[in-house]
């Protein structure tokens, strides 16, 4: 346990923990677009910047990204100093120029008092803020089907050669984790399409509902100790099945399940 001070209040933190995770636990709101609890911190959006100092720093302060800065005994953090707010406003100003049509960015910018970007907006913006959440989650899943391509301002998230990525299993993790909802996908007629790749969807053998892609199911079966027919029924039907089983034990459970 280490003791740190946040906005004047003494707070306990775990050794090795990042400042942002303490802020989250304490309910202190700090914007962070590239942060996700399932992922290692990346430090690319820079919005979670806070000001730190220590008693023996002679008043000297430093701006750090809270998602990457490990707590240390005696650390003094301020999350809403004027300097930090100015940085956040300016970064949102830059993001708004890049993604003028993103609801998420617009709302966040407005909350910080940035109503309109000071810059010329990017003409063909796709609302991607290059936070790498999608590529990181894909890596965590052990696939790394997509990656950041090119560099600098030309950098985009893409599949190798822009083709259907051979390693993609259609799990949709990238689309779900994307903070600005940029990654498009479609489920239609038993097929799922994402990254220009098409997947067969499993239909629940009980209710006929489409569930996950066949390749995703195969991948999970290969990775984990799961019964071979586990994915042949949908979650709802599985729950129902369980309720029926339990119905024998508790009266009325069947009706509740239905």
């Amino acid at each position: 346990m280490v003791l740190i001070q946040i906005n004047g209040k003494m707070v306990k933190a775990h050794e090795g923990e990042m400042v942002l995770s303490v802020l989250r636990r304490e309910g202190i709101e700090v914007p962070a677009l590239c942060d996700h609890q399932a992922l290692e911190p990346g430090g690319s959006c820079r919005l979670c910047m806070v000001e730190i100092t220590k008693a023996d720093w002679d008043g000297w302060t430093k701006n750090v990204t809270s998602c990457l800065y490990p707590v240390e005994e005696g650390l003094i953090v301020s999350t809403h100093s004027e300097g930090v707010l100015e940085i956040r406003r300016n970064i949102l100003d830059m993001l708004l120029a890049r993604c003028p049509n993103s609801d998420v960015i617009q709302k966040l910018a407005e909350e910080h008092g940035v109503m309109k970007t000071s810059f010329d907006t990017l003409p063909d913006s796709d609302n991607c803020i290059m936070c790498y959440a999608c590529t990181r989650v894909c890596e965590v899943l052990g696939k790394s089907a997509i990656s950041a391509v090119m560099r600098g301002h030309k950098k985009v998230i893409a599949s190798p050669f822009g083709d259907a990525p051979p390693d993609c299993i259609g799990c949709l993790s990238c689309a779900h984790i994307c903070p600005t909802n940029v990654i498009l996908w479609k489920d239609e007629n038993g097929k799922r399409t994402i990254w220009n790749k098409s997947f067969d969807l499993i239909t629940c053998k009980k209710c006929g509902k489409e569930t996950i892609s066949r390749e995703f199911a195969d991948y999970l079966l290969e990775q984990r100790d799961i019964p071979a027919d586990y994915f042949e029924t949908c979650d709802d039907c599985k729950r129902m099945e369980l309720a029926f089983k339990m119905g024998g034990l508790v009266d009325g459970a069947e009706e509740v399940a239905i």
Partner: protein
Amino acid sequence: MTPDVKQIQKIIDQHHGDKSALITVLQDLQRKFNYIPPEGVTATAKALDVPLSKVYSVATFYSTFSLVPRGEKIIRICQGTACHIKGADLIQEQIEAGLNIKAGETSSDMKYTLEVVNCVGVCAMAPAVLVNDKMHGNVRCEKALKLVK
């Protein structure tokens, strides 16, 4: 012309599946074929057991890699600071106009590829132009085109 798969494999195999050799493998492929053939990217990923997307990411991140075939003559115009203030832009304009290609492009007859490089370190001889690794210093704008043709 499709690059010989065997040749690609031979180059890759020299590195015995060492993941950290990724950049070197791509450099070796480019040296052999003058660009990195897509087949080479795929084969590299397989041989080094690195995800294809990561190999592609590396191949597009570093500016010296080319994923498309390049011309017989590769002309590199230095745009370092010293070259810049001594008129590298003018030289670039002259060469672009003369070869009818922009920086980063290859002429349709596959004779010339024009590239821009951020400093080759011969600042004392600015402005500099490289033609297939042959260095030319103190290049005069009006003579630039003759030099590369």
